[in-house]
């Protein structure tokens, strides 16, 4: 039932709006007034609370289930970080509040910038991008600004390995570039020969992530960096997967000129059913003049340090603002809180235990007969198994495995990504899951493999324990039904 379907004309949650103290008309010209009510739901407060409480229970979430979703880093979102973001001083701070009423907030952001520089080995950080994809946009836009500043206008291409996340090519295009794909070898590393063939004076840059979405660490990274740099291109690091290397390697040390981070992954801010995120960018010396504004600066004064916004007047070559205000402040506060809770020791442990968990699961599953995509490689924070044999021999595909896992009470891994591995499941356990949880998941997969052999319809019919069975996506796209159509009949 939709919230609309439990409403009734004239019903309302009366405690939630003011007794209007003013005449409705005011100075709004008749021609500009709304004539018919919008048609929002007409429900009581209890109905709203009950409806959305019940709806929420139809979701899987980190707080209810293990969520080994590769390339998503679904780890525990500390409630303490959520709580501090909800402090009245932060919650009610207006984005344009003057400096004197902003020192608490700005000091957190300034320190977060410092931590992120520390963690990535970059020279400067801007916190403003609102998700990974906007971070990518900022990064590639800076690459473009750099080349333009150098008058280097023949650079029209961005190189992207085939394993890359879809946002990478989409971003390159939004920044006005053509995308040239670079093959990935059988071992999961970039095919150096293919890269050599692709790189040239038209190369604006290379976007890649390391560890890659193949779940392996690109071993020839220094060679790659040299290749691109020698051709005059810059290196973009997609830092969505920073969880794998936190405290272990810094992208800056690998030769990257710019990166974005997904704080909603590595820094444990909740995913919220699809967002919000936060995608700060870090830059090396070449791109420092171009960082998106605003960023937080610190000024020494007689009364102590004062934090302030640095904007285009201080950073004239900046690619500028990408949103009305400063980005997803509340997420940044959560990330800052997380960084403080962990501290440097804790951050070192993130990469370690994320990697331990992934390698443990990979080995357990391999021993149980699953096929790893890169059996000769160490897993990083995630790894891939491929079901192509099962698809061929048993008629059950990766999606069937994924759906059947839901029946076992586990969220499915990422399916069919990266695209280059057929019938794959990308599994990322994160460091916050216990051995018991990992074992439970492996046991479930093993038992599903047995089902696949004996009763494959258990897989192809799955899920059967959830609020709905498999949905008709074709119908959804064909008979588009995007809004509820029943209309309201009252007048204002």
């Amino acid at each position, binding site marked *: 039932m939709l919230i609309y379907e439990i*409403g009734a004309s004239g019903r309302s949650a009366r405690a939630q709006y003011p007794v209007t103290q003013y005449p409705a008309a005011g100075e709004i010209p008749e021609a500009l007034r709304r004539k018919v009510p919008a048609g929002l739901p007409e429900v009581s407060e209890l109905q709203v609370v009950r409806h959305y409480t019940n*709806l929420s229970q139809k979701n899987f979430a980190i707080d209810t289930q293990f969520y080994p979703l590769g390339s998503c880093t679904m780890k525990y979102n500390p409630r303490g970080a959520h709580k501090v973001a909800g402090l009245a001083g932060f919650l009610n701070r207006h984005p344009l509040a003057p400096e004197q009423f902003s020192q*608490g907030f700005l000091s957190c952001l300034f320190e977060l910038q410092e931590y992120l520089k520390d963690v990535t080995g970059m020279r400067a950080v801007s916190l403003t991008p609102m998700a990974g994809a906007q971070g990518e946009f900022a990064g590639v836009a800076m690459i473009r600004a750099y080349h333009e500043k150098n008058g280097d206008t023949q650079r029209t291409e961005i190189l992207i390995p085939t394993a890359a996340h879809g946002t990478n090519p989409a971003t390159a295009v939004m920044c006005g570039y053509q995308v040239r794909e670079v093959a990935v070898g059988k071992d999961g590393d970039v095919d150096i020969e293919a890269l050599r063939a692709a790189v040239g004076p038209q190369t604006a840059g290379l976007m890649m992530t390391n560890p890659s979405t193949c779940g392996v660490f690109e071993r020839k990274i220094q060679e790659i960096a040299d290749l691109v740099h020698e051709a005059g291109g810059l290196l973009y690091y997609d830092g969505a997967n920073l969880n794998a290397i936190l405290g272990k390697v810094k992208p800056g040390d690998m030769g990257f000129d710019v990166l974005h981070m997904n704080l909603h992954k590595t820094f444990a801010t909740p995913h919220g059913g699809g967002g919000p995120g936060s995608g700060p960018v870090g830059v090396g010396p070449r791109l420092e003049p171009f960082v998106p504004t605003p960023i937080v600066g610190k000024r020494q004064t007689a009364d102590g340090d004062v934090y302030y916004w640095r904007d285009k007047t201080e950073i004239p070559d900046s690619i500028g603002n990408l949103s009305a205000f400063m980005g997803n402040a509340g997420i940044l506060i959560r990330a800052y809180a997380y960084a403080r809770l962990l501290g*440097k020791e804790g951050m070192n442990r993130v990469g370690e235990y994320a990697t331990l968990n992934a390698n443990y699961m990979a080995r357990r599953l391999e021993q149980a007969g699953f096929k790893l995509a890169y059996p000769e490689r160490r897993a990083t924070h995630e790894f891939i198994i491929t079901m192509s044999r099962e698809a061929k021999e048993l008629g059950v595909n990766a999606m069937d495995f994924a759906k059947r896992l839901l029946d076992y009470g586990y969220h499915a891994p990422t399916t069919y990504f990266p695209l280059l591995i057929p019938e794959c499941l990308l599994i990322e356990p994160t460091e916050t899951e216990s051995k018991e949880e990992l074992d439970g998941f492996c046991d479930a997969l093993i038992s599903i493999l047995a089902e696949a052999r004996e009763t494959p319809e258990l897989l192809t019919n799955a899920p059967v324990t959830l609020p709905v069975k498999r949905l008709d996506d074709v119908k959804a796209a064909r008979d588009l039904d995007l809004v509820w159509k029943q209309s309201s009949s009252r007048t204002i």
Partner: protein
Amino acid sequence: MPFVPHTADDEQQMLATIGVSSIEALFDEIPKALRSGVLKQTPTGISEMDLLRLMGERAKQDQVRLSFLGAGAYHHHIPSAVWDLVGRGEFMTAYTPYQAEASQGTLQLIYEFQTMISRLTAMEVANASVYEGASAMAEAILMAVRANRKSKSHRILCAGSVHPNYLSACRNIVRNQNLHIDVVDTGDQSGTLDMAQMAVYEGQDYAALVVPYPNFFGALEDVDALTDWAAAQGMLVIAVVNPVALALLKPPGEWGAQGADIVVGEGQPLGVPLSSGGPYLGFMCCKQALVRQMPGRIIGRTNDLDGKTGFTLTLQAREQHIRRAKATSNICTNQGLLVTAATIHMSLLGDQGLYAVACDCHGGMMNLLNKALGIPGVSRRFSAAVFHEVVLRLPKPAAAVLATMAGDGILGGYDLGLVSPALADCMLTNVTETKNEADIDAFVSSLRRACEG
């Protein structure tokens, strides 16, 4: 070890299964030269208790007694139920609903959101959000350029009365694709576009016209005339609207003869706290015919294997994870949790509630205006009707007035000198339903002192 559950035993058993002797060994594929030591700028970890204390002290520094700052972000009452529900782990810690069967809660909620926001704007379809208002406008511009098949123009016409931060963000975003935004000056008298002035742009090839509503100065453009004019020019109309205002104002879908084509806006006033500027939510609606050019996630209603109603992501072929370089946008993570808040907020307010809020905002603003006009030297800068925000001309530089008022703990508004030197004696002041008579009186007496002193 905060948030790492491994016991020493667990760790030993896991290493044994893997067949290595230490966690360190798992990093043996990383070239030695690249391995970094311990972090240097990052402090040692603290307990949650110490964190709460530290952050409590910082948050306290930023507390303000009374604020009349608006300029794109508005303080409204948010029913307690909203964030109690939004904060439920099942909403807050869920991922993007790619596994539809395990995400019916979020999916149905977004379908409800799409319905509500479409109705509020009187448009046919909506997406599941983009980042926020300014980048939503940029996406609308990119979309209009793709969608306007008649004009293949890469030029956009935009009302100069749009929020200046929106304009710069849009330029920064669309510039790389060689799109240009031309700006129509705001009438110096009215604070809105002058239809007479529009004639200059007739016959020029623009993909779309961008109309803010209310505009940055709080004023109401002549949307019917502008919409009809643009349609006659073969331009699409992009409306940039405040959703709360739409409870009282004619919705973009009803502008002129054919309505706006694309409607975007900042959803923050619908249940999202000010929170220093984010996370907010950009909303985006359009005519049905344009839906395949719209970026961002879209939820559709469909059936499951048993014919039961269910909800799922649809039209994914527009998106980056499927179409990659050919996608409508690179957006992936959006503002899901804020959509959750906005949906619950709109449900709780309903038609009557949102209408009452809009009336109180407008009425409160008029009340403040009338009282402020009693102060010598204070006048109304523009003549056009406004919604809940107004430009006051002051007898001194706004910066000085605002600084004095800040001394009373009152943020009196936004210094328009920051936008244009010609407006250095003006401030943009907002009133919402959260301000009562006493608050308005406090504002007025503080302003009086600041103007006199």
